[in-house]
């Protein structure tokens, strides 16, 4: 059974249909990508999945519960963590603290433990700090734990965001254009990191990505969106040769020319 299954999800903004009848599924343990031209509704679809938007129609099923009507924090608590297209870190907190915030759901200390500094509090904090350090090492952040997140270079900030999402020990990780703005070397490293997240931590990955090298290099399944609708899905090879996908990206005329050349 699919880990995440959506059925005819519709999201409208006034008269604009941003996501139209998306039926879509992600199998456990896979790396799945959603691609599509700018404005195709990919990020809106992500936001609908994570509870930032409530869809007008349709169902979203994750594991064995429905996500419809849940607030983003409740969605996060079911085991979905995400990163953002334009990095959203807690800039004036340290790198380590950013990761600790990611553990919010797991930590059980309450106000009484906090104020009286109970044994439970100390143990939990120590344990959390240890885990945060491990996560920093896992994503390749060295010697920056005490730096303010906003002082790190772009690539480092991307890594923090991923570490913060991993800190929530999710079953499904949503990455929104995780390699945007990276050079080919950095993208290569990112691909390796995503593979390790799946292979070593067993976390299913669903990502939106524009960089075709990344998409084709890592995805096991690709869905293509255009004008809010899913126009194609399949393996990278299938997508590469799909007529509608080429049309969506290049326009009909160019697609025909492309055909003739081939």
């Amino acid at each position, binding site marked *: 059974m699919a880990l995440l299954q959506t059925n005819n999800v519709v999201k409208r903004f006034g008269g604009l249909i941003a996501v139209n009848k998306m039926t879509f599924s992600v199998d456990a343990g896979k790396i799945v990508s959603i691609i599509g031209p700018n404005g195709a509704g990919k990020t809106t679809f992500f936001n609908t999945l*994570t509870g*930032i938007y409530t869809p007008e129609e349709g169902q979203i099923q994750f594991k064995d519960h429905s996500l419809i009507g849940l*607030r*983003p*924090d*409740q969605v*996060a*608590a079911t085991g979905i*963590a*995400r990163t*953002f297209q334009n990095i*959203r*870190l*807690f*800039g*004036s*907190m*340290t790198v*380590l*603290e950013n990761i*600790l*915030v*990611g*553990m*919010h*759901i797991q*930590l059980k*200390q309450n*106000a009484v433990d*906090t*104020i009286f*500094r109970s044994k439970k*509090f100390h143990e939990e*904090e120590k344990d959390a*700090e240890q885990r945060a*350090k491990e996560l920093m090492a896992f994503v390749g952040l*060295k*010697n920056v*734990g*005490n730096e*303010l997140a906003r002082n790190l270079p772009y690539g480092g900030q991307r890594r923090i965001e991923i570490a*913060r999402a991993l800190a*929530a020990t999710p079953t499904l990780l949503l990455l929104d254009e995780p390699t945007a703005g990276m050079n080919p070397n950095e993208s290569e490293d990112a691909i390796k990191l995503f593979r390790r997240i799946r292979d070593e931590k067993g976390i299913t990955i669903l990502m939106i990505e524009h960089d075709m090298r990344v998409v084709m290099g890592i995805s096991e399944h690709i869905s293509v969106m255009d004008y809010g609708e899913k126009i194609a899905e399949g393996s990278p090879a299938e997508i590469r040769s799909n007529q509608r996908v080429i049309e969506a990206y290049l326009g009909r005329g160019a697609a025909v020319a492309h055909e003739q050349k081939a």
Partner: protein
Amino acid sequence: MKTLFSDLYKKANTGFWPIVIAFVFMIVGTVTLFQNPRSLGSFLVLMTTPVILYFMKMPMKIKVFIGLLIVVIILPVIGIKNIFILEVIFQMAVFAALALGLNIVIGMAGLLDLGYVAFYAVGAYAWAIFGSKQMSLLYSIPGAAPANAEFFLDARWFWLFLFLGIGLAALTGILLGLPVLRVKGDYLAIVTLGFGEVIRVLALNLDKPINLTNGPQGITPIQRPPLPPEGVLMFFRSFLEPLVGHEVSDAEFYNVMFYFLALIIIAIVIVVATRLEDSRIGRAWTAIREDETAAIAMGIPLVKMKLAAFAAGASFAGAMGALYAANRTFVSPETFSFQVSIGVLTMVILGGLGSIPGVIFGASAVTLLNIQILQNLSLYLSDLRQSDAVIPIINFAWKDLSNQLDPAKYQKLVFGIILILMMIFRPSGLIPAERRQRELGEEKE
């Protein structure tokens, strides 16, 4: 010039020098203040000692020793000679607690609350209504109280009301928060501003249909918590009186008691605020301040955590409100004007949003400025006005100086100037917030 100063500071901040400096400030301040208890200069010298203790390097034990010496022995003894000193410190502690509470709401959680004084009012009125004769006067016309009215509760109930004040203020915070937290930023500021006024207007008008607050006249007398038993007082008298040189009256003991109560509460408030800040809860607040969307995606329930911030911030004000009502034995709606909210905000901004030591410093500095420095300037000016002195060169006689130029009337101006200058030159405050540095076991390059 600047480098010269910082070099000098670096040199002074090594070895045993900090200890020497702290002792010099303490002793000079104490001795001169002992001889001349009304001297503002000596008081400022003495009050610089805690700042030195905080900033300069010296063993923790010595810091604690000097700190306790000043707080537990020097200030109470001098305070009995000049009661105003204890009053200043009492007010500093009250405002520091308010500022620390507001700091949780604005500094940590980033919710601009301009009606913070409301929670202070709730704590104060809670004890004012039950700790006075007001409960027996519910059905009498304000101002026409029967002479034989009795206190509703025994004075000892104050201790319970200290906690009830906390609870009631926290509850008010939650009740306010529930509808209000749907709005953000500027809108939140305006709604809370309105709420602060609503509470004040309620206090002003709840003398009808039943006389709960006694309206604009305010409630008085409010009971003070009882002094310790006579035996304990005798013990203190036995060594205080030779030091002070006159008999210590009950009124003076009350001042010392309120001074210590305020210090105990502020100590608890500081501990609670510091511990909350460095925990899952405090991190969640800061995360909300930094980026709500990212925070909620990390599983932080926004409404619940914002309510918690409101409640925690309000509870500090509630406790101090109850203490304030007992100390003044009088409350009136005037005490809880919008001005106070802005004053506390000024303290938070001057010290540094989100910075606990900064906020304490800001509260102390602004309080000192308000009730000591401006007042002293006023006194000085009025002395000049009564003299025949003339400003040379421009040939201006001091006695022609307008009464409107009385510095004590400049509170609002001073708040305004502080806010403007801070926002332009030091938006993160005099002692900016710092994140805790953890031991990470990483090698430093």
